[in-house]
């Protein structure tokens, strides 16, 4: 039996500390992965949606959430995954995109991802801002990123794919 000593707002505020292990400047809220928190008689349920179906960071994020809430005396915690509505980069806040850019990853360019070919053109370089860039590979070091190079400052960079 849970005595409701922690509100949903409190828990959401605490969860700001949980970062995406692959882009540690972004919280799971910033990225749009945290969908909801339910408080029931049986405990607390944190609802997440995966960015990619095979995202290997999910296990780490789940463990981080449980460990963090436990230290604050919030338990039992269950982390549930939902697939619908499907995660989209449209849920990423403007602030999140700015943080991502400062971290050296070009944020997703277009809000609509219907046409991949158009979304991939003229991604601005996160270092110098030049749009004179070229796609090296659609698939980067993680599922969510593509590889680019900047023709002006010559730096290679990653682009967070439109999804």
């Amino acid at each position, binding site marked *: 039996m849970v005595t409701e000593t922690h509100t949903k707002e409190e828990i959401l505020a605490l969860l700001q500390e949980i970062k995406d292990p692959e882009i540690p400047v972004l919280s799971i809220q910033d990225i749009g992965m945290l969908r909801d928190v339910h408080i029931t008689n049986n405990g607390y349920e944190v609802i997440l949606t*995966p960015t*990619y*179906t*095979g*995202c*290997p960071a999910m296990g780490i994020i789940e463990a981080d959430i449980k460990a963090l809430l436990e230290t604050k005396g919030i338990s039992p915690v269950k982390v549930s995954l*939902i*697939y*619908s*509505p*499907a*995660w*989209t980069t449209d849920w990423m806040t403007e602030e999140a995109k700015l943080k991502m850019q400062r971290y050296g990853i070009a944020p997703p360019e277009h809000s609509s*991802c219907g046409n*991949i*070919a158009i979304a991939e053109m003229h991604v601005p370089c996160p270092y110098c801002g030049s749009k004179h860039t070229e796609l*090296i*590979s*659609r*698939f*980067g*070091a993680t*599922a969510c990123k593509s*590889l680019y190079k900047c023709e002006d400052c010559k730096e290679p960079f990653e682009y967070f*794919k439109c*999804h």
Partner: protein
Amino acid sequence: MTQQEALFKYILRLGDNALIHSHRLSEWCSNAPFLEEDLALTNLALDMIGRAQALLQYAGSVEGKGRTEDTLAYRRSERQYYNNLLVELPNTDFAYTIARLLFVSAFEKEYYAALQNSADSTLAAIAAKTLKEIKYHFAHAHDWVVRLGMGTEESKQRVQNAVNDWWMYTSELFEMDETDEQLVKDGIVPDLKALYPAWLQAVTDTLKAASLDVPVSGYMQTGSRKGIHTEHLGHLLSEMQYLQRAYPDAEW
């Protein structure tokens, strides 16, 4: 067959296709022609393993006998697998791997777009999620087929050989059995035959853009709907399942 049995068997087919294709792509890890392509092929494998996990987990819950995605992946033998023959065949070379990806992703692009409208909300949700990934898979396959077709004499010949050799495995993608009939009726799964014209159009467009010939349809191989496979699936499973067979219930 009850509705539940039909649905279980059908979801296994979807999960198995993702799992076995994923395994073949993962065999390229550290073997691809260059680093970026190594990352790309393993990224594709990762998308597919994620899809397989979601589907097999759902299959286990539909069956209701306590089997998890892991039990279903690691404790079934080849006759209990329902993936299309095309995805279990050996990688052969890079051109074969890419040509197969073209055929499969062109099919899956149409298939999962249609499955988004399933009367089964779990399947519809997985479909919407996975479709976004498949669009990238198709774009990748398309680009490479064009690049190989427009490359050197050798690259063109090799991708044409791959297209020709895989062709007889493509009609199985659209083969329907009694599970299909039963589930189509209730709006749970799409009619596969209806997807064929769009698939043929997409594949033809890519092959034409690559200045490759579209094979003329002849003999078509089949078997997987009944769990009858090529000799290659058993070898694949013996590697994939080794750890769980040798050390049952081993965990990280």
